């Protein structure tokens, strides 16, 4: 049997608040197989970003474990965790805040290599960055430009190229398309699907938008108040939601069949 790429087991994260505590994550378990895309859907405060931070090893759980390619990342020594980090990379929501405006694109993309003493240098590094830029639909020569010269969608491509440079097996995308125009969102989703196919990466895709899940995910987990309320194959959850909360989310999506104020009488 194939080993899961990501196995989150009984993960909880509690934050103290006054006399009590907030259960930001409450007994969350999920499994992502290699080369699959798992959507985690939830609204503000559902715990989805806390989950992303813990999977990335940026925060520690109160209890539970995260295994990436079989390794429990919180059982690793700091040195081994640093080495393991090349296996999992993250793309953030804000394409303006996540790229250092003072650095050229080439340096930004190569940044994750600075821990890796065996990484290519000089000419070879330039070639590698150029190849990645082409992989994400930009030009190799773009590495000499600055972030402000690029649109939001192009910046998100740069952020994805940076994530790919360590040849990760897992990509965590936290609302990676939410700040983009819909036409640009669609292009970035296409790119993520292509990268999954070409580089064989698995993706944990965190979003508040069910419309996005529908376009790229193989499976989906719906989160509310720190818990997973429903999960399963994407089509099953989207077409036959079992939980009232999932149905409510689906019903709140924009529709085009009730146009204008058709539902209510209009003042003449």
């Amino acid at each position, binding site marked *: 049997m194939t080993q899961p790429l990501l196995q989150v087991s009984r993960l909880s994260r509690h934050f103290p608040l006054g006399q009590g505590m907030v259960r930001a994550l409450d007994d969350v378990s999920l499994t992502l197989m290699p080369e699959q895309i798992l959507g985690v859907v939830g609204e503000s405060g559902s715990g989805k970003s806390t989950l992303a931070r813990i999977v990335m090893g940026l925060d520690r759980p109160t209890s539970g474990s995260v295994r990436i390619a079989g390794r429990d990342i919180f059982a690793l020594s700091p040195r081994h965790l640093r080495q393991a980090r090349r296996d999992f990379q993250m793309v953030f929501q804000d394409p303006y805040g996540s790229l250092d405006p003072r650095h050229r694109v080439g340096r930004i993309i190569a940044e994750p290599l600075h821990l890796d003493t065996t990484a290519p240098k000089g000419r070879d590094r330039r070639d590698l960055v150029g190849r990645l830029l082409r992989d994400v639909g930009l030009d190799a020569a773009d590495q000499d430009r600055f972030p402000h010269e690029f649109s939001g969608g192009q910046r998100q491509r740069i952020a994805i190229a940076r994530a790919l440079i360590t040849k990760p097996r897992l990509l965590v995308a936290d609302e990676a398309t939410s700040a983009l125009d819909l036409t640009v969102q669609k292009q970035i989703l296409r790119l993520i699907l292509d990268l999954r196919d070409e580089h064989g990466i698995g993706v944990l895709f965190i979003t508040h938008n069910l419309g996005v899940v529908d376009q790229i995910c193989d499976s989906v987990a719906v989160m509310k108040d720190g818990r997973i309320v429903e999960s399963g194959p994407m089509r099953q959850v989207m077409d036959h939601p079992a939980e009232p909360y999932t149905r409510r989310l689906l019903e709140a999506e924009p529709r085009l069949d009730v146009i204008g*104020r058709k539902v209510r009488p209009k003042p003449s």
Partner: protein
Amino acid sequence: MLSIRNLRVTFGERPALNGIDLSLARGRTLGVVGESGSGKSVMALAVMGLLPRTARATGRIGFDGRDILTMPERDLCALRGNRIGMIFQEPMTALNPAMRIGAQIAEGLILHQGLSRRDARAKVMHLLDMVRIPRAAERIDSFPHELSGGQRQRVGIAIALALTPDLLIADEPTTALDVTVQAQILDILDDLVAELGIALMLISHDLGVIARIADDTLVLYRGTLIEQGPTERVLRRPGHDYTRTLLDALPPRVRATLRDAP
């Protein structure tokens, strides 16, 4: 009430709007759809008389017979708030973080309408009810950070409504919100149009948002008016390839609802 004729705005050599024509009547909602760089926010600023000094505008923005482009700043100040209200995308940055929400809503009432603090507070309670903030009596003395994103946006709407404007401009009012909250906010805006007869200009990059409440829709692309007409016609029989591109960019689930329509 609002009638824009051949509006052109340029920043130096760069055109931001190339000849926009539109009109909007009381009790109607006009959806303005466009992506980043389409000029939709420049249009909102122009109508508010808030274009930066570096912008050059020609044409006419008629509001109740007067031209906003040539109006002196003093008259514009009276217009803003009193006659034209604005709702912004980011309710956290649009609100003053150090001021209780009740005081922020009351500010315009006290400054513009000369209400006493006591009368203003009563009016604020009514406004909080209107934008459906639950337990308004407890919320009135909250600070913005104590509210959820959706509640903050409701406060933003209450501020815009405080002086009973005739025209509301909402620039991406739901973009930062969860879908369930987005639906609630759009319903509130829609009710205000229907019940108070306000004219609403709803600006969004998302046709799904526009479709929900806009009577008419105008499509902007790089400063150029691509098409405009009744929302239903624009969605069902788009007259331009760019409108079709926008429709194609909608999630398939949303697009499918157009086909299911009666």
